[in-house]
């Protein structure tokens, strides 16, 4: 067993990865963390914390280091640590990003500034309130609506077996939009959301397109939900939503495709 231990340490050293090794290249970086507590009415300020970083250290890793060893009161929200749950969104060096998906080394800045996501009410420190964002998401009925599922009589071969098979082309029409993890980065980058709280935002609109373009869906009334004064038409096509999305979704494209349907320019749901 002892031999095995030695072997592991040895091989780690060989790869230059063992943090216990004195020669290991451990850099330091300064985190500037936004601090506030709205419930207690405290003034906001930034705290500077020096943390060790390695090549692969993410912003979330360093915030958790700071929380564990320097200041346990820092408020952060996170869960999966692998860009899947969408809970660790924050503004990092001026751009909305996922803290678990942003390596400090790729920021190429000795100071990392962490702030809460813009366009969201702040609860505490880096934790924001997603209630309005989720309400917009729910308002577009983000699920497949198809009454044929409930019918027992035979309608056609597909619905009678209760399996709605789709061709590869049909899947391609909405696939990229289904990768959304509801992290809210696009919503926080949107200039229209910043001024118009009733605007559903890029996430909800892209999801509306996702269900509208799905061949299994029969919910035609969805479009009416966003066809109002603060709906689909208020997008200025800044495109910042698509730029910040960590999952490669292009909400701006979804919005433009929806518009082309509503204007009657496009009848065919294109592959995207």
């Amino acid at each position, binding site marked *: 067993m002892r031999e095995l231990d030695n072997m592991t340490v040895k091989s780690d050293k060989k790869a230059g990865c063992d943090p216990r090794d004195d020669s290991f290249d451990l850099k330091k970086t300064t985190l500037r963390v936004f601090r506030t507590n709205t419930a207690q009415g405290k003034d906001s300020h930034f705290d500077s914390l020096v943390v060790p970083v390695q090549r692969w250290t993410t912003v979330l890793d360093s915030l958790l280091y700071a929380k564990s060893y320097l200041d346990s009161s820092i408020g952060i929200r996170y869960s999966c640590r692998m860009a899947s749950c969408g809970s660790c969104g924050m503004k990092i060096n001026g751009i909305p990003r996922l803290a678990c998906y942003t390596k400090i080394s790729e920021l190429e800045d000795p100071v990392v500034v962490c702030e809460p996501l813009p366009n969201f009410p702040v609860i505490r420190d880096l934790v924001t309130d997603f209630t309005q964002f989720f309400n917009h998401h729910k308002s577009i009925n983000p699920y497949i609506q198809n009454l044929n599922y409930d019918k027992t009589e035979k309608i056609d071969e597909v619905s009678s077996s209760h399996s709605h098979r789709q061709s590869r082309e049909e899947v391609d029409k909405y696939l990229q939009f289904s990768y959304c993890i509801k992290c809210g980065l696009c919503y926080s980058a949107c200039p*229209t959301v910043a001024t*118009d709280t009733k605007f559903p935002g890029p996430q909800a609109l892209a999801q509306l397109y996702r269900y509208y373009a799905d061949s299994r869906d029969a919910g035609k009334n969805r479009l009416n939900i966003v*066809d109002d004064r*603060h*709906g689909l*038409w*208020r997008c200025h096509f800044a495109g910042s939503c698509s730029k910040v999305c960590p999952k490669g979704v292009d909400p701006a494209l979804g919005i433009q495709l929806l518009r082309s349907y509503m*204007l009657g320019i496009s009848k065919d749901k294109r592959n995207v």
Partner: protein
Amino acid sequence: MNGISKLALKESQIMKIHYITGILALFVVAVHILMRLVVPYSSSLEYAHVIANYHNIFYAILLESILVLISIHGFNGVRVILLELRQSKIWENSVTITTIIAMIVLVSYGTRTIILANGLGL
């Protein structure tokens, strides 16, 4: 109020009108500018030339369409900008009604000028 809301257009219909008027306005304004260039530019703005333009019925129709298209497109643009400033039913309805009234006033006044200059109103 119920009657008014029945008359109200959907936002997609309003935006269709917005885009169509924008495209048509580009075309008629281009014709209007090109007409300045068929004679030397400074003489195209002389009093006699301008009045002659108004007396030409086709040119008067062109000016009227510029007036109507730009007014519809422009006032709807202003409405859209103002709608984003505040989110309340009272504000939204006031903005919509004010811009419609301003548009009607401008188009009426401009039409009156075109008719008078054309000579039909004399």
